[in-house]
């Protein structure tokens, strides 16, 4: 699949600002003024943000971009508090200035033709599937979206996606909403039903792996957005090893932030991740 080319390209490093913040279930949604980033953004790329008092940067998927708003160009991110950095981010009030670099990494590759696509996302990592769905619909693709989570609080709302997606399926591990179970339990069935040529997946490794395997069984392409800790996010430190099989069949370790985060599902050496 060819890379989509647009201008302007490449990441920028800007001083952004929190312009809106809202708790949704277990997550904190932040809207960040981030001049220069929305016009460069492609679904699946991410941003690296600076967290006060921390040397390593924090990677965040981009849930939505707006080229213009009352605050200029903005982007939305979904933060799940996991450690000190995400706790800091979630606690920032409107007005906090935050250095943002992005968009970073390889985005989801888009199909040349109007094919059928299955999008599978779990937890906050489903975020980049929403702009992807829009983009695919613009290209005339039939989009089936699966949003999964351990429970309702960790489910990204699929409401807005109903415009871009032909079908939306909700899965929760505890069955609190939608179908009970996880992606591995349902992915083959969902793939068969959607008759997809391409599977896009975002979420923990177990979700990505099951989606990639299902795609392979069904003879479909897969593109997975892998999360590996990314100390810089910009390709400078080589601290984000992603073990893959190269096009030449040779085992390699690439940088998840630069040669990833999105890679072909059949290329990932899952056992070495």
């Amino acid at each position: 699949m060819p890379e989509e080319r647009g201008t302007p390209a490449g990441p920028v490093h800007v001083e952004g600002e929190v312009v809106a913040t809202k708790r949704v279930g277990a997550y904190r949604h932040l809207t960040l003024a981030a001049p220069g980033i929305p016009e460069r953004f492609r679904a699946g790329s991410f941003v690296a943000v600076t967290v006060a008092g921390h040397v390593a940067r924090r990677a965040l998927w981009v849930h939505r971009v707006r080229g213009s708003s009352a605050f200029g160009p903005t982007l939305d991110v979904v933060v799940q508090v996991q450690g000190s950095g995400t706790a800091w981010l979630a606690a920032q009030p409107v007005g906090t200035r935050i250095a943002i670099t992005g968009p970073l990494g390889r985005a989801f590759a888009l199909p040349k033709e109007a094919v059928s696509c299955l999008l599978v996302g779990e937890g906050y990592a489903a975020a980049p599937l929403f702009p992807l769905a829009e983009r695919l619909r613009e290209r005339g693709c039939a989009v089936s979206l699966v949003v999964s989570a351990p429970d309702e609080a960790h489910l990204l709302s699929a409401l807005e996606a109903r415009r871009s997606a032909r079908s939306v399926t909700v899965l929760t591990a505890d069955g609190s909403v939608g179908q009970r179970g996880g992606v591995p339990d349902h992915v083959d069935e969902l793939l068969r039903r959607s008759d997809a040529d391409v599977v896009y997946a975002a979420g923990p490794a177990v979700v990505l792996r099951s989606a990639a395997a299902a795609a392979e069984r069904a003879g479909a392409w897969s593109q997975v957005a892998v999360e590996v800790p990314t100390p810089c996010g910009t390709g400078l430190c080589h601290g984000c090893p992603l073990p893959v099989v190269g096009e030449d069949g040779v085992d390699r370790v690439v940088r998840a932030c630069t040669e990833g985060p999105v890679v072909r599902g059949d290329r990932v050496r899952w056992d070495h991740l």
Partner: protein
Amino acid sequence: MSAARLGSVPGPVMVAAGCGGTGRELLPYADQSGLDGLDLVTRSITLDARSGGPGPRVVEVPGGLVNAVGLPNPGLEHFLATELPWLVRAGARVFVSVAGATMGEYADLARRLSRAPGVAGLEVNVGAPDEAGAGLFEVREPYHAASVIAAVRREFPTDRPVLAKLRPDVSRIVEGARACHEAGATAVVVGNAVPAAFADGRPAGLSGPAISPIALRCVAEVHRALPDVPTIGCGGVHDLASARAFLDAGARGVQVGTALLNDPTTVARLRAVLLPDHLTTPEETP
């Protein structure tokens, strides 16, 4: 040998080894002139390709990072064929960091790099924080470092600089700097990441603002004892104040590593302020 005969000291702001990716990744964060004229040290290049160590390779700690990246690099040949020409075309002044398991490997690297067009100079990595783990030639005593420098110097043209990059170990730094300078190093880079460990005890190196006072002490001691040996400060430089502390302590320049990982524009910002000063200050000749 006088330093003047061994190439001139780069500076005042350089990209430290291993913190500039392949160089290309810095382009989006450079100023209008791109990488033109940028003093860039490559990540350490070995004769053969290395895929690097397992994850986690880089872990955050208070004030810095602990890393055991394992020198991932494509090997000399591939580097010469692809990365170097790109950097040279982009106008960077490329200092190739070399690392080897034996003295012979260092000599070999130097010989082959001496013939590669566009190499501005070499930096010899003789103070990695975990040489044994990285499979590098072990520098236990200053004379070990000096013999590596001598071996490199023999193979590399005297009009181009060879930098000796040492550990910021106060009990040996003065002796190490003296020995390396006598062996032909144009300048001494003080220093590398500090030997450290991950929380699980795995050997690693500590870098970032946390180590700045350590590297600064070493620079100050070298400058006090050996005012004629040019030093380049490296360790925790992240803003103008931290860069100036090294220059005030006698360093001719600074290298920026970890700070680039936090803010990739750091070198461009520091250069904007420090380069004009530097160009108007007549270079001292020892």
